[in-house]
């Protein structure tokens, strides 16, 4: 087992970070909250730089750890773009079905926006919301991030011979209902589908969900790390009672606990990526590793952003301050693809031998 970034991945991380620092400061996310077209210029830059090609396992030698690196930096920058949705979630589910999905992955690699619809209404965990009968894809899914910006909907369906991954084009037979959501910079919608899919391929359910879970974890690790960095900066400069507030153990220890939570999640995310790139990993082991990473990253992102609000005090309650943007991003992504408790419960139940 090896866990960690190689020098190429560290260079990729630094490049992505540098580009986003210039192209996408946190203020862009605030603008995107109210300007529904704001994401497009950032997205064009990202597509032109070729980051969306990470969707294609048949091109280059990028693995899931490279995907995690880019997703983490986009999360840290609160980039209001569908990179996680397209490249992490939709393409992540598709690649589990093998070469049959290469044409769709090529489109996503070229920058066509895709969304992943895997939340059956009323369920906390992701699953199979659709059916496929006589070539017709039907069903409803909720909480689909970036669906409003997507040309492709990727979903899971129960067919005659088991689970398939299916792709539909938005338009006729794909009814999109936008949700007035926590983080309007990455808008969420519900979907009702009754259409002929452009592609279907048999897939293992756990494998189809594993890469999306890992990618969402990476995004949340990015948010957690960025929020903690903001808290630390503030705790060093803000003075009360004659010293920086970070000198008080009440603040210092809360931030140290955030650091533990962050690195716990980052280790699990890198380990899950390494496991998923190892062809010897069973679908169950891959799903478990990714589910634990997502659960840990959701916790880390929510606790780091909540602490950030506490440390910043009253100013954190204002629209103009950035911290609520981190909180919104954390809460929204933490609630999709399984909240932390539901994922922990599922993994614990399996470990205890209680079949779901």
């Amino acid at each position, binding site marked *: *087992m*090896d*866990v*960690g970034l190689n*020098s190429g991945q560290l260079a990729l991380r630094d490049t992505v970070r540098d580009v986003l620092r210039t192209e996408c400061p946190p203020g862009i996310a605030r603008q995107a909250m109210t300007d529904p077209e704001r994401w497009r210029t950032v997205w064009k830059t990202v597509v032109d730089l070729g980051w969306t090609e990470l969707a294609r396992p048949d091109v280059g030698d990028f693995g899931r750890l490279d995907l995690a690196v880019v997703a983490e930096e986009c999360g840290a920058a609160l980039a209001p773009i569908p990179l996680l949705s397209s490249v992490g979630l939709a393409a992540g589910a598709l690649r589990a079905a093998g070469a049959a999905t290469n044409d769709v992955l090529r489109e996503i690699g070229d920058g066509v926006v895709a969304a992943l619809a895997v939340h059956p209404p009323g369920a906390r965990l992701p699953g199979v919301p659709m059916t496929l009968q006589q070539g017709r894809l039907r069903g409803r899914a909720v909480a689909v991030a970036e669906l409003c910006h997507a040309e492709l909907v990727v979903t899971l369906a129960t067919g005659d011979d088991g689970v398939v991954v299916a792709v539909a084009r938005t338009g006729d037979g794909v009814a999109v209902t936008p949700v007035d959501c926590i983080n309007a910079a990455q808008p969420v919608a519900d979907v009702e589908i009754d259409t002929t899919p452009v592609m279907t391929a048999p897939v293992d359910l756990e494998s189809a969900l594993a890469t999306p879970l890992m990618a969402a974890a990476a995004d949340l690790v990015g948010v957690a790390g960025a929020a903690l960095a903001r808290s*630390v900066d503030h*705790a*060093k400069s803000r003075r009360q009672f004659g*010293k*920086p507030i*970070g*000198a*008080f*153990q009440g*603040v*210092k*220890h809360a*931030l*140290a*606990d955030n*650091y*533990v939570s962050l*690195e*716990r*999640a*980052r*280790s*699990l995310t*890198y*380990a899950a990526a390494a496991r998923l790139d190892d062809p010897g990993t069973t679908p169950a082991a891959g799903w478990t*590793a990714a589910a*634990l990473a997502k*659960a*840990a990253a959701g916790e880390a992102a929510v606790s780091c952003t909540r602490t950030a609000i506490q440390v910043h005090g009253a100013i954190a309650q204002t629209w103009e301050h950035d911290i609520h943007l981190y909180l919104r991003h954390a809460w929204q992504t933490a609630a999709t693809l399984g909240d932390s*408790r539901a*994922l*922990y*419960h*599922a*993994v*614990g*139940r399996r*470990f*205890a*031998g*209680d079949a779901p």
Partner: protein
Amino acid sequence: MTHTDVVAEFTGWLTDFLPNDYVQRYQQYRWDPVLRRDYQRAAFEAGWLQPTWPREHGGRELGLRAAMEIRLEAALRSAPKLPNIAGPNVAAPAIRQFGTPEQIDRLLVPLLRGDEWWALGMSEPEAGSDFAALRTRAERDSPDSEVFRVNGRKIWTTQAHLSRWCMLYARTDPAAPKHRGISCLVLDLHSPGVQIEPIRMASVSDETFCEVLLDDVEVPVSNLLGPYNGGWHVALASLHHERQMIWIMNWVEIQRGLESVRYACNAKPGTPPAREGACLHTDTPDSTVQLRTLAHERGDVFADLGSLLADAEALRATGYRALHNELANRPSPEADILKLLGSVTLQRVWELSAAAAGPGSIGDPHLLFERQDALAATIYGGTSEIQRNIIGERLLGLPKG
């Protein structure tokens, strides 16, 4: 030879060493002093005790990665715990790093073979987390005197009553700032003026605390370990070694705790446990076992269990990340979460085990031991509060209070 080969060789050796019924009767063997002494000696002779060290010091000059794989494998197999952990894991690395050739020659092999045990003379009644506030004095009657005269009092000195030597920290320059006036001395606990009083423990434990009273004890100047007035540095370096081991020891115990929760969730009325080592609830009456099998009472356990599985996997993955960075000559700040996370996880896993056992937890002496033992983990080797200060100040760069 690949890592896999060397781990396989170790596994084969361990299987040959352990009694055939080791797994079935782990609960007895884990306390067996003879087995544990023999294990240390055999591991020393076979080169598995400190795998990165040279052959004469109980190793086989393996790389860090192979050494970690071997330690984790030993953990997974519940290999016997060393009877005097302070010796091989804290004193030995310090002797190798700071010792004179004469000290290494005299002290190291008897320590590693387990023939001579070691105690750590750090804490004092008025110096716990604030270790540098220690008051035990080591003075020379004249600058060219061949001996230090030591006076003071050490406490919580684990296994001092069974040890031959003590890594004793004493103040050698009262005028210097408190971190810079401390030296580390190798104290022969058989010296005149040393009085050792074992302290009764709240739990059943073979790691008994002692109080060590030092009344005009003479320690040869040649027993100085490391630089004169450089004891603070020796202490930090030896605790650094200890910290690298502590998370693996915590991880082993966490694995057993997780297994005990799994067992508690699955126990059927009247079914004896399949494996004592994995399950600590061996003496539980059937009525309690029946309680545990009710599905609706297990539901709340699963989420905590999943969270603990994440903690355990995060410990291992973080250990590997730190190693990855070390091997690439990069900083490995993530290693500083291991002590804090490992100790808290250990406590949580045994509390969950107790919850899953219901009132059966009351009458289970093994579980009582595990719960009490886990509570020490956030205190020894640097308390959790000190760990948080280290993370806050050294990693995050927050100002000192």
